[in-house]
C-alpha cells in the first residue's frame, strides 16, 4: 500500500485515478495544480506522485523539479495528452529524471497500476 497524490487539473481524470488507486488498495488523494501539489507533498509526504504536465498555476515540470529539490527522490509518474506539441516531447523532459515514469494519455489504468507498483516496490527495495 502506498500513499499516492494524483495531480491533474481535470476533475474527471483526478477523481477517476484517485478512486481507482484506492480501489486497488492504495491510499490516494488529489490536487488540482502544481502549487497545491507542492503544499500537499510538504504536509502529507506521499510515497508517490502521479501528475499531469500541462496545468494552470504551476505546470507539471516545474512541480516535479521543485519537488525534487525540496523533497528528494519521490517516485513520480508523469502523464500528458500533449497539445500543440506532442505529449512525447513534454514527457521527454520528465523522462530524463531518475525515478520518473511517463505515460501518454489516454493509457490503460492497468498500465498505470503497473507503473505505480514498480516504482513503489523499487523504492521499497532500495
Amino acid at each position, binding site marked *: 500500500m502506498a500513499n499516492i497524490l494524483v495531480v491533474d487539473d481535470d476533475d474527471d481524470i483526478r477523481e477517476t485515478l484517485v478512486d*481507482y488507486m484506492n480501489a486497488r488498495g492504495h491510499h490516494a488523494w488529489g490536487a488540482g495544480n502544481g502549487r497545491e501539489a507542492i503544499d500537499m507533498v510538504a504536509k502529507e509526504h506521499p510515497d508517490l506522485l502521479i501528475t499531469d504536465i500541462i496545468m494552470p498555476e504551476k505546470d507539471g515540470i516545474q512541480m516535479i523539479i521543485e519537488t525534487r529539490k525540496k523533497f528528494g527522490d519521490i517516485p513520480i509518474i508523469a502523464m500528458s495528452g500533449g*497539445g500543440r*506539441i506532442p505529449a512525447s516531447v513534454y514527457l521527454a523532459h520528465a523522462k530524463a529524471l531518475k525515478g520518473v515514469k511517463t505515460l501518454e494519455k489516454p493509457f490503460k489504468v492497468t498500465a498505470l497500476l503497473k507503473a505505480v507498483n514498480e516504482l513503489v516496490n523499487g523504492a521499497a527495495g532500495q
Partner: protein
Amino acid sequence: MERINVFAVGCDDKLTEQLSSFSGFSLVGTAPDFDKAVKTFRLLAVSDRIPDAILIASSIRHDFHASHFATLVNDEHELTVLVIKNPDEEFCDDGFVYVCSPFTEPQLRESLCTATKIRNLKLGMDFLCRNGTSSTSREELDATVLNEQFKATRRLQQMMIATVQNTIEGIVLVNPQGRIEYLNKAFERIAGKKRSELIGKHIKYFESNKFSSSLLHALKKIAISHNPWKGNIRLDDGIYELFVGAIKDRDGNLLGYAAILADISSRRAVENKFIQEQKMDAVVTLAGGVAHDFNNIILALQANVETLMELRKPDEIGEKYFKRILAACEHAGLMVKKFLNLSRNIREEISMVSVGDTLREVTGMLEASVTEKISFELNIAPECKDIYANPGSVFEIIMNLVHNAMDAIKGDSGRIMISLEPVLIQSENSLGLAPGEYVRLVVADTGEGISDELAGRIFEPFFSTKKSGKGYGLGLSVVHQIVESLNGHIGLRSKPEECTEFHVYLPVGKQDNTTDTDLPQNQHSGPEHILWICELIAEESAELPAVLRASGYNVTIVCGAMEAMDMFNNNPLKFDMVISDKVIRAVDGRALFKHIFNIRPDIPAILFTRQTDTIEISLSVANKLVMLIKPVEEATFIDTVKILFSKRDLSARLMQTPEQ
C-alpha cells in the same frame, strides 16, 4: 468693363505712376529687368495671376525673349508685348508693337489691341507654317484648327477601338433592343463564333445558355435600377466575371449596353489555394487545441470502464458491452493521434527508409486480415533506393493508401496493384518537383473510382466519400501532408466505376531541401536572429541581449523552456542561434536543447553556466555548442557569437559542396 492686367518691365517711376492711374488697367507687377521679371512672373503664375500683357521700356526691348516666359505661360505666343518708346526715339521695324510715351488710356488700349491682334495673327501663321497650309484667311484658319481637333479626336477614337478590339477581356456592345452591334476578338474566342455570325443577332441566341440568361438578367436589372451589374458566371472553359453597364449620350439617352467578360479562373484557383491553406491552418490550430482535452476525456471514459470491469467482475453479457466501450475508446484515441499528425511538422527520427520493405510489411499485415475476395499484386523494382524520412510517416502513407484502396473495392472481388519503381525527374516537369531521383509508388485498385469533381477535394481534411461512420476523412489528407513535407508529390488518376490509381513521388536519399537550400538563404538575409532563452524576464538578462542588439543582431527573448520550445517549433528556421541565459532548470534545458538540435542540427548555441553548476551536457554537437561561465565579459561574449556564426557560414558552404 474688365480691367486689363499689365506688367511693366524697365519702366521708370513716372511711367509706372501713369499706368497705375488708368482705371481700365491694373498694374499687377513691375520689374527693372527681365531676370527679375521672370522671377516675379513665376510668383504671379503660382497664384494664377498671369498678366494679359507685358509693357517693356524700349531701352531694354532687345533683352526680351519670349521664351523666357514660355515655361510660365502656356505658350510663349500668348503673351501680348507692347514696347513703350520715348517721343524722340525713332520707330524701328523690329516686329514689336510700339506705343509712344506719354500716352492716354485709350491710346494704350488701342495699342494693346493691335499688339494682341498681331500676336493672334502670328499664332495663326505659326500654326499654318507647322501644318504646311498657305491659306491665311480667318475662316480657313478656323477650319484648320477644327480639322486639327477632329484629327486628334479621330486618333483617340482609333486608339480606343484598337484597345477594345485587342484587350483580353471579351467585350460586346448591344443596342437597347438587345441586338449585338459589336464584339471584340476576345469575345469571338469566348463565344466560339465569328463576328459576322453574331452581329445583328439578339443576345438570347448565344450558344451558351448560361451566358445568354446572365446577360438578359443583367440587362433587365439595369433597365430597372440603372446601375451597372456585376456577377460571376461559369462557362464551359472557365469562370468569368461579367460586367454589364448602360452606355448613354451626353443628354442621358440610352445608346446601348456594354458587356465585359473577364476570365477569372486563374484568380479563382489562387484564391481557392489560399482558402485551402487557411483551412489547413484552422485544422492545425484546432487539432492542437482539442487533442489535449480529447485525450483527457477518452482517458476518463476508459479508466472508469476499466475500473468497473476490474472491480465488479461483470458477467459475460456485461463484459461484451464493456469491451465495446473500450474498443470505441481505443478507436477515439487513435483518431486523436491521426488528427494530431496533421498539425505536426516536427521531424522526428528521420532516417533512411526502404519504401519497398515498408510496402512488404504493410501488405503482409493486411493480407492476413482481408477476406479472400481482395488480392494483392506487389511489384517492387529491386533497384529502388531508400528515401530519407520518418519511418512511421512512410508506413502511414502506405497504410492509408492501401486501406483506401481496400475500402474502394465493393462487390464480389477486386485487386489491389501496388508498384514501386525508380524515376528520374527532369528540371521541367508538370508535377512541380525539384529535378532528381525519385521513387514512384503506385497504388491502384479495381474499385468504384471517383469522379473528377470529388477527386479535387479528396485530400481535404474531413472529406470522405465513405458512408458516415466508415471513415473520418483524414487518411488521405494525412498522406498528402506527409508527402508534401517530404518534398514529394501525390496525384490520382481515376475512372469512375473502373479503377483509381494514386501516384506518389518521393525523393531518393538525403534530399533535405529545407536545410540545403532554404536555410542558407534564410540565414543570409538580413541580420541574424538569435533566440534568447531565460528563466525569468527580469533576471540579469537585459544586459547581454542589449549588447547583441547593439551589435546589429536581432534578438527574441523568451522565458521558460516550454515557451522556448513552442516558439522554436512554430518556426524552426526563423532563428540562427540559440542562447540560453543559464541552463534552464537542469532537466528541462537538456531536453530542450536535445529537441532543438534534433530539429536543427546545424544551429549554433551558447549555454551559460555557473562554475558551481555540475550539469553534464552530453549533446553530440560540440562544434556548434559553446558553454560560457558567468559572469562573462561583453567582448568575449560578442567574439564567441561572431566565431559561431562564421563557423556556421563555413559549414553551410561545406554542406553545399557535394561530398562523397
